[in-house]
């Protein structure tokens, strides 16, 4: 039983963490919380099933195509829903523009793909070992993403440019960094990570349009817990959430498990609005 809680909890938690990182990557590049994170995860699953199951492509080709689609959607998000509102002084507009864009894509998916859960293909044609692939694939994807991002941010020039933009976009622009192109790249990267989350978790969560709202919410919890922009915090928060959710499912069971998760989320946020690792607010006057 414990083994079941841990394997499922960590696997689901890894997907939440990846969605949390998707939020973070978009946030650091633009100071925008984008409602498109869950939508990207949902698309990862749906497109994976579309390419591999319905169109019969090999798993690896399917994966690459899904990631490419994620990148394209990320770029479109930046152009359609983020860039126009960044110019405006009205801070709230991004909530609306990204919500509208996410709804648009989700409804299109609902109509073209259907609203019922569809099967997601088995990615690796081997027999189950100790741990089923649907558990370790998301964990592997999460670990690879975190290591990749660490490498990108710490060891490469472009990664440092990302960080500079996040720190102070005016100063970065003054230094001659191509802010717009870097932001576009960040959104493409976020698209890739979000789609990867859905793809890696596909065998567990299925190709299901309803995953959008679930991932949007549960992917945000790690961000809230770990502090925005903090990827390590998101991973810890995501895994904790996954374990807590599975433990609640197991111990409380039924309907009250989800109520418990939501209630804990709200209480934690009220106690620590900046998350457990976040710093307090910026200068106002």
């Amino acid at each position, binding site marked *: 039983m414990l083994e079941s809680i841990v394997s499922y909890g960590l696997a689901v938690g890894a997907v939440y963490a990846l969605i949390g990182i998707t939020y973070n990557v978009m946030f650091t590049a633009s100071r925008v919380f984008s409602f498109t994170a869950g939508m990207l995860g949902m698309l990862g699953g749906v497109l994976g099933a579309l390419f591999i199951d319905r169109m019969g492509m090999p798993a690896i080709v399917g994966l690459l195509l899904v990631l490419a689609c994620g990148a394209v959607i990320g770029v479109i998000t930046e152009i359609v829903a983020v860039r126009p509102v960044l110019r405006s002084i*009205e801070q709230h507009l991004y909530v609306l523009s990204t919500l509208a864009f996410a709804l648009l894509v989700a409804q299109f998916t609902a109509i073209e793909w259907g609203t019922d859960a569809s099967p997601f293909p088995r990615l690796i044609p081997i027999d189950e070992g100790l741990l089923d692939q649907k558990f370790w694939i998301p964990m592997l994807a999460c670990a690879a993403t975190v290591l990749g991002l660490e490498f990108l941010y710490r060891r490469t020039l472009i990664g440092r440019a990302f960080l500079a933009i996040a720190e102070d976009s005016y100063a970065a622009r003054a230094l001659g960094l191509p802010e717009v192109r870097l932001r576009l790249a960040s959104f493409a990267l976020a698209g890739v990570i979000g789609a990867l989350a859905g793809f890696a978790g596909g065998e567990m969560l299925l190709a299901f349009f309803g995953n959008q709202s679930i991932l949007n919410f549960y992917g945000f919890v790690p961000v809230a817990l770990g502090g925005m922009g903090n990827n390590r915090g998101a991973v810890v928060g995501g895994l904790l959430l996954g374990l807590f959710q599975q433990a609640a499912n197991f111990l409380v069971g039924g309907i009250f498990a989800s109520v418990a998760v939501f209630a804990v989320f709200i209480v934690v946020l009220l106690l620590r609005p900046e998350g457990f690792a976040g710093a307090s607010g910026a200068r*106002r006057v």
Partner: protein
Amino acid sequence: MHLRWLEGRVTFLLLAIAAIGLPLLDDSYAGVIATRACIYWILIAGLNLVVGYAGQIAIGWVALLTLGAYTTAVLTAGTVTPEISPYLALVASAAIGAVSGVIVGLPALRLRTFYFAMTTLGFATIVTQIALAWKDVTGGGMGTPGPVFPWPFDPGWGFYYFCLILAALCTWMTANIAKSRFGRSLIAIRDAEVAAEASGVAKPALLMTVFVLSGALAGISGGLFASLQSYITPDAFNFDLSVLFFIAILIGGRGSILGPLLGTILLTVLPEIAAPLVAWSTFLYAALLLLIVLLIPGGIADMLDYRNRRPLQQHREIVPQPALLPGLLDRPDGGTLALSNVALAFGGVRAIDGLSLDFHSGEVHGLIGPNGSGKTTTLNVISGYYRPQAGEARLNGAVLPFGAPQKRAGFRIARTFQTPRLIGGASVLENVMLGGTIDGRGTFAESLLTLPRHRRDEHMLRERALQALTAVGLETLAGVRADRLQHSELRFMEIARALTLKPAFLMLDEPAAGLSAEEIRRLGALIKAISRAGTGVLLVEHHADLIFDICDRVTVLNLGKILAAGTPAEIRSHREVVSAYLGA
């Protein structure tokens, strides 16, 4: 006057006539749709104050609709209590809605936009889950029948008129709030929270009041919704409904009553006309929302606001009339604001290091020094934004507690900001009226019903603000939306807002920045006149000429300490100061 009264209300009147006359069509289907629009509007009217005015991203308001619906339905059915009249049950729903509104809204005091949005979604999920699980009361997944209102508001046109009357009442009441000092304070919280605090707006209390009202209206709306639906199940309260409420306000336009009302009608009626497109309805909502955000962020209200599209006069001059100041400020008694040994460090950096300063009413006190010398920090300490680690401040001998910027207006301490904090969506007059907020005497409830005290408050604030605007020379722009003003005009507008408080002390943070030489000259005369009318002015400024022209006393700061203090003439000849800052 009568024509102007009509101008603002003609759309409301036309809507009312159409709504009252609707039964003449003898089309009960139109009646159902109109009833639904009324019911949604009752909720949206309240939510509008939260989203459209206070700017809080409350997405999950369907939670309150659900609570109201179940409360009315369960009490009327008598499953847990003795059966009670639906009308009484509706009152109970309003009460439960009001309490729940506070609970759902509470996080807004601590959380920023997106976080708050997520918690409201969390509440929406929790309420639905509880409705499913609490079978004995709510009927669980099977649901429960909705109430049937007895005569005179029985199903059909009777019920329609009931909803219409309530909707009209909500329109009237929320419009009253919108036009009151509470409405102005809400918009200020949304657009310029710092300015709201400086004007003495108590954000927590005001937001909670608005959540109570909004929750109560949502509760009533829920009870009516249950009756219109005739049967409610948890599945009926879906996310689409929440999105509809939220989007109606934004399509309508923030800071407007008419816009969201039209938005509500549009979103209720549109899907009926576009029945063949039903599968695409949410898709179309989303597309509409995206288009509006990108193309007309101000929504329907902005499109209808033709008065603010009329071009403004091109070359405008600001001509202050300082002669009006004594009548406006009305400050005979003198006073002193004293800082002693104040020290404040950010991390390892000492921003102010044992500073002692006295400011006197009737004087202009200049504060100069290089960047980072602690000028603005001093100002922020006095106005309560920073809490120093040591020292104290006294106002006329009594201790002025540190922190709590929203309490400074009560001590008649006003200020302006380095970057003008304008409330872009409000008119210049409304921006200025905000300054006198704490002198309003009527309560929120009195404003809701436009009782005499509210009308007296409004009259008084309007007169005072107009006087202040005339004194600074902006009276011709009173009706213009503030975000259309030029930079220099905004500086004068902020001064007018500060003057509306009738301040004992006025702190100006670089008021001359960005002004032309002529404007600086006029500003100088204005500031001098303000001090001569009895207000103590603390002036932080880089323009040395202005400082030496108008100041009675000057203090020079360096690294958080006083480098020199004295009359302008003394400072001008102070060697260190001259060599360090004033140049040759």
